[in-house]
């Protein structure tokens, strides 16, 4: 019998096939941070047939919206989602890269209006290129790659 890296949850959201080492960043994107009350189980660098190694995150007692979950595609485009009820999967899907994201990424251009005192929700347009995901700042037009570096810390 296959040994489980993390125990089953009764009800909630399981995020599987996260690129190894990115689980903490996934939590950040979902705004599950220090002080949050969700019960979270996490496994990092577990063996995976498809990916070599992967991370898994399980959030108990919470069904996270599809829109919020799709933001994970910015840093883990192969992630899969299982929504669990009574220990059973009742819905399963892959994350889809959103066309735009708001309030998730920060612009590295220090002369961008989003880095001023103005009341702005940071917005990026996202596209999949040959060499990975690219996001373009809606305001100054700066393009960013390796998006892990730009996830907003809240």
């Amino acid at each position, binding site marked *: 019998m296959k040994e489980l890296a993390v125990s089953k949850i009764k009800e909630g959201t399981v995020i599987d096939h996260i690129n190894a080492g990115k689980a903490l960043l996934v939590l950040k994107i979902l705004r599950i941070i220090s002080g949050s009350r969700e019960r979270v189980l996490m496994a990092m660098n577990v063996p995976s047939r498809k990916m070599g190694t992967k991370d898994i995150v399980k959030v108990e007692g919470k069904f996270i919206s599809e829109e919020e979950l799709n933001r994970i595609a910015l840093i883990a485009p192969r992630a899969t989602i299982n929504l669990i009820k009574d220990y059973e999967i009742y819905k399963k899907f892959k994350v889809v890269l959103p066309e735009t994201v708001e309030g998730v990424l920060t612009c590295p251009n220090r002369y961008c209006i989003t880095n001023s005192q103005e009341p702005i929700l940071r917005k990026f347009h996202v596209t999949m290129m040959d060499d990975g995901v690219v996001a373009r700042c*809606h305001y100054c037009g700066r*393009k960013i790659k390796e998006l892990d570096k730009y996830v907003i810390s809240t």
Partner: protein
Amino acid sequence: MAHFRHLISIDDLSRADILYILDRAEEYEEIAMGRGMGRVLEGKLLANVFFEPSTRTRMSFEVAMKRLGGDVINMTAQEASSVAKGESLADTVRVVGKYADVIVLRHPLEGAARFAAEHSEVPVINAGDGAGQHPTQTLLDLYTIRKESSLDELKIALMGDLKYSRTVHSLIKALTLFDAEIYLVSPPSLALPEDFLEGVRGKIYTAQLDEIIEEIDVLYVTRIQKERFPDEEEYKKVAGSYKVTAETLRKANRSLIIMHPLPRVDEIDVSVDRTRHAKYFQQTFYGVPVRMAILSEVML
């Protein structure tokens, strides 16, 4: 049906939008020259909101508005900075939008105009946002090329600071819509950034001026700024080798035109001013009918 409500970036315009504005500008040229009085913007008020000084652009908008019968109020850089103490740009445009029918904005931060447009009840025209966009300059550049040369089968060389010049960056993007052959002439340290070319499709080549001078239709010169160089000697050496003189033009096509966004320092020798090729002062004038076309487009 309006082609646009705000004018923020040349990237927002299609080839058809650009040609539409150039055609409209053509209609306004007589009035821009002071022959006859325009009345289409009578009763309308333009607010220049400048967080950075720029006499030339501000005056050009003012002339365009007044020659079409409208009036202008100005918030200068000094006033803007004092008003802005504690007040957000979002609030400033909301307030000014209550006084005026259009806001012409210059701001030191990139993306400021797009942000302002999201908060403004009246149209916003970007008159330069930091190193970002300056779409009215690009449109007047295209207008100049069409008037004094041709946008069809165009061969153009862009020379000088191609790394930091927003004018050049916007112009390249617009020229690709017209399938122009674009030659980049610059010192290696001021070459066009590689990531700029990602996603830009077009016939773009690097070259030396003397290799292409006989073939090109337009030579667009930009200023090489002293502050981009670590020392004065290095600057002088580089700037000297990217200077246009009457001698440089000896082998040029008779119909070659030379453009420059101005102000120039010494990258175009005054001896060139007297040649048939010099079009940079005419280019400045064309800013007026082009801005007239833009103003009437967003307000009527």
